């Protein structure tokens, strides 16, 4: 079974900070930007939904043809921070967005939870190292390489 999947982490100011093309389907050069378009457009829906639910995992919130967008929103509505704590503002309202052409909500949910854990670790490590700017390359070199395995696992 061929799958296309694109995973993007979007920071709270809508900047993509991590991007991974995963999946077994051959990447088409002319449609390389399609996942970005779909996921960025889905941000609007996330914004709408975030007001209505306290759930972090928003399953299948948007779709384009047969591609389904699932989103995991990190704590924002849960933590009400009056003044930004050193690194906490990097952790909140980050959105993990996954574009998949197949649906298995449980798999996606556990994938998101693992990523969230990993993301927090990376953030804390980078903050402890005294980095003011998040250094995504470090994250990428580190644990995030493991990400590439997960979608595969999910489809099994």
């Amino acid at each position: 079974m061929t799958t296309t999947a694109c995973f993007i982490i979007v920071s709270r100011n809508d900047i993509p900070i991590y991007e991974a093309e995963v999946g077994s389907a051959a990447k088409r050069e002319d449609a390389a930007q399609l996942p970005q378009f779909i996921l960025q457009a889905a941000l609007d829906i996330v914004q709408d939904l975030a007001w209505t639910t306290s759930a972090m995992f928003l399953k299948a919130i948007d779709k384009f043809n047969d591609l389904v967008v699932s989103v995991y929103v990190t704590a924002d509505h849960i933590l009400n921070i009056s003044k930004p704590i050193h690194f906490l503002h990097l952790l909140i309202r980050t959105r993990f967005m996954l574009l998949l052409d197949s649906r298995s909500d449980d798999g996606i949910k556990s994938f998101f939870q693992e990523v969230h854990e990993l993301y927090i670790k990376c953030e804390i490590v980078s903050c402890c190292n005294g980095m003011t700017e998040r250094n995504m390359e470090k994250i990428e070199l580190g644990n995030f390489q493991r990400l590439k395995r997960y979608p595969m696992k999910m489809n099994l």
Partner: protein
Amino acid sequence: MVDPANTPLGKMLLEEITPVVMVLCTPLVEESCLKNGLSFVQMLSPFCDFTNIDVPVRTAIDQPYRLHKFKFRLFYASDIWQPNLEVAKERLKQVITKAGEDDFPEISSDLPQVNDLLSRHESEILPTWFQFFNKELVRTLSFSDHEAFDHPVACLLVVSSRDEEPINRFLDLFNTNKLPSLLNDGAMDPKILKHYLLVHDNQDGASEKATKLLTKMRSTFGPNDCRLLCINSSQDGQTRHKDTPWATFRYDALATEHLGHFLKLDDLNEIKNLMQELSSKHIIPYMEQKIRLLNQQVSSTRKGFRNQFKNLWWRKGKEDALDTTNGPVYTCSSIESQIRVLGDYAFMLRDYELAVSSYRLISTDYKLDKAWKRYAGVQEMIGLTYFMLDQSRKEAEYCMEIAFNTYLKLGSPVQQNATRCGFWWIEMLKTRNQIKEAATVYFRICGEDLLHSAVMLEQASFCYLLSKPPMLHKYGFHLVLSGDHYKKCDQIKHAIRTYRNAVSVYRGTTWNLIKDRVHFHIGQWYASLGMYDVAVTHMLEILASSHQSKTSQELFLRDFLHIVQKTGKMFEVLKLQLPVINISTLKVIFEDHRTYASPAAASIKEGVWCSLEEDMIPSLSAKSNWLDVQSKRIPRKYKESNICVAGEAIIVDIEFKNPLQIPISILSVSLICELSANPEELNSEANSSNVEPQNDEYKTSTSTGDINSSLVLSEVDFSLEGGETILVQLTVTPRVEGILTIVGVKWKLSSSVVGLHNFESNSVNKRIAKGRKAKHSPSADLKFVVIKSLPRLQGFIPSLPEKTYAGELRYLVLELNNQSKFPVKNLKMKISNPRFLNAGNQSYLNVEFPACLEKKLNVEQSGGHGNAKKMLQNVFHFPEDISVQEETSLSWPLWFHAAVPGHVSLYITVYYELENVSSIMKFRTLRMHYNLQVLPSLDVSFELSPCPSRLEEFLLRMDVVNKTSSECFQIHQLSSVGQQWDFSLLQPVDSILPSQSLFAGQALSCFFMLKYHRKSSTSEDSNPLFLQSDVRFGPPGNSEALFDVCSSPLADFHGYERLYQGMSCQGNVDFVFITQLRRGNIDSGAPHRPLLFSHHVCHCR
């Protein structure tokens, strides 16, 4: 809640779902009408819409109500056919193409701003042609057989009074051969209301004949159904209608004022009366009656429990027999068709309650019969009726969705129906402010027809823009989708228009693939229209997209260059990102009174030089430098500027980086400089107001070729591999006095693309000006006051080794050149590390080395005497009579001694004064810098143990280890320096080291007898430090001279060694161990000569 009839959908329905009147007329009638530029139907149409009538109507159950608004539509019988789909498509395409031409944005117009769009009203944002397009699209569906509201309610038969035998003509007109298929094939009841109209053209004469005809007609067709219409009362055709009622029927607006110029106001009033009478006295009562009749029939056959049960039973039995996709064929006499007609008539007469109950009744029948198209049509009408009733909103939308989905399931044959249903549904959602949902419906309307899909997607995008809060990402995405569809249909202008809007959404986005996509396509499309200038601006945005794949980068660059080439122009691009300039690496090296012998010297921190020159430059120590003295002469504006000298190059180092994975080649990289040459004006402070750069400044940016210009700029070409970074050195040489500003750098990416980058002055990393002023205004960093040409010394030390062994003693020569014709004088020199390098005496110039160090018989030890003083003050003064003239060089001997192993940096400053050349600059310094590496050679250590038996005798043990890996040292002599000591070898050297060669890694231990030799009477006048006794190693009879360790330079270096190895104190004994290296493996300036090594060990006791 607004009255549903006043909503856009309500208005649309009241306009579209209205009774149809079929018109049958003779050619002569048409002829009369065409005199006015109008057809018969066109002439009457404006008067079919009644907004202010009052017709009493009764519902089927005798409830009275009044109709205040009414409209019917007139069609020629020949037009009552389902339009040909291909023709309709072609017409729609023309509509779109024309809209594309009209709506195409000006090149000069700015890109739309999203915020601007949001602040405007909906009607201003939406392109006006959408409405028209949608209407046209819906119109392609007219006269389908499964809906009754397009079926003619009445027939208007028109004959001209000029026709021969008008009565017969009337009969002939309603000839079944010419009637629409709807009437003929049984889809509708052919027995419809007929109305007979006689048209009389007043230009043909008086109307008596017509009146006669009318009475004849009345007797034939009935008194109420006949009318006479007189037109063209105006004889001259000069009638002008101010608000011509026909304007909306003619889109070309071709002199609409000429329409109807034979129609007088009386004519128009007559037409108006005719139509009003037709509607209120004939059509409405007819429909009312028909509704009553149909309702009766339906009630008798279908209402009531028994009938329903029967119907259900009957249909269940039929189920198996029917399996066609369109379901069964219903004729006009079938009860199903009649119910539908009942519903549609009720809807048109605004009896919505009756309409909805009829539709609901029929819908289950159609569902059971699997007549899906009819089922969808009925569901659609249920939805609309609910809407008009303004009740069960959920139900209304649900019905629309069912209808829409059912149409979609049926596929392409009913795609148009799905589209129309979608439109109505969308309008319904919009009315309820569910704009977001409306957008998804637009998205679902998109069918196989790309062009229609493009328009739908664009409309969807506007829905997202207009939703509250606006969904800009969705807006952008749908615009892009729409643009791509337009492009596939060759509607480039539409594609550009949508992409332009998308660009405004995606401006400054960090989603790089999106940005690239949008700019690349719009750039390409503009280029395909030949609008290369705009294309280039878009292509520039994506030129340095480092995240793209190699092939994309190649494509972007190739297309960009291709487009630029087509423009045939030279493009100067500010802040071109190809290559990227790393501005933090910008380094400016220039020379004012401080000059440098090499780039290496220039890169040394200013502080190092300052501390070295501290006691040499008088003005600095006196806290008044030449700048302060000259501050009156230089305007305050430039007081803090840097000074540079005409004819001397300013060097700028800057780093270029190729962000792409593909190699690029860069040509003609050079600095952009401005030189304002008016130093005279600058000198007078009174004129300082005139010194504004704009007034009397001229720009110069010339190439190296132009000798006569006031500036000489270097040009560099280079190529960069993918991702490569290169440090480029650029120079500018001002040739005349003035004020020089380095503005930026420029380069050529191809023959017609010039990249410019202006330096932001505050980011300049300036190394040089640190020592002079505490604060610099940032703008001054790249601004230079150019003063007139001055002498400049060049200096170098030819044979200073880069790598040597510890202990090496070498004779060097310092060469100083002066290129200018003015002499310099009062030379002084300071060396940072006198332990390693020392100025020698002029008398040593051109002597033989190392022979000059050999002990002579009549030794004058004068050199040694002054050394202690020299050591302290460090500054070496050249003799006062020495001056360096034009094209003569000064050579001065230097002594080098590699004292200790390690990396050593030598800093040498030569100070010189200029004679009467410049009032601004009195002196200059030449700074030289050398790095050298000293490797360990011999490790020499001494151990002194007192003789147990004699008080004044000591046993001296010397341990020497050759630490090199390959060298072989010839041991030569050991000398003691200090008080009167005599010492001798305990055993001959031959027995220890017959060859006298110490090979790599070899160790040697010698024992000496050291005896204190009291000779106090003679040593009164001589410095005890410089008394010497030697032991020569060598074969007996060796006549090689011993070296004199008590005279310069060995004595000098020994003095430094004493200083560094510890405090000087009497009673200690120092040793100097001298070896030679005959055939060194190490790089040296003079390979043929043996190298001399001296190792100094001090304070051995």
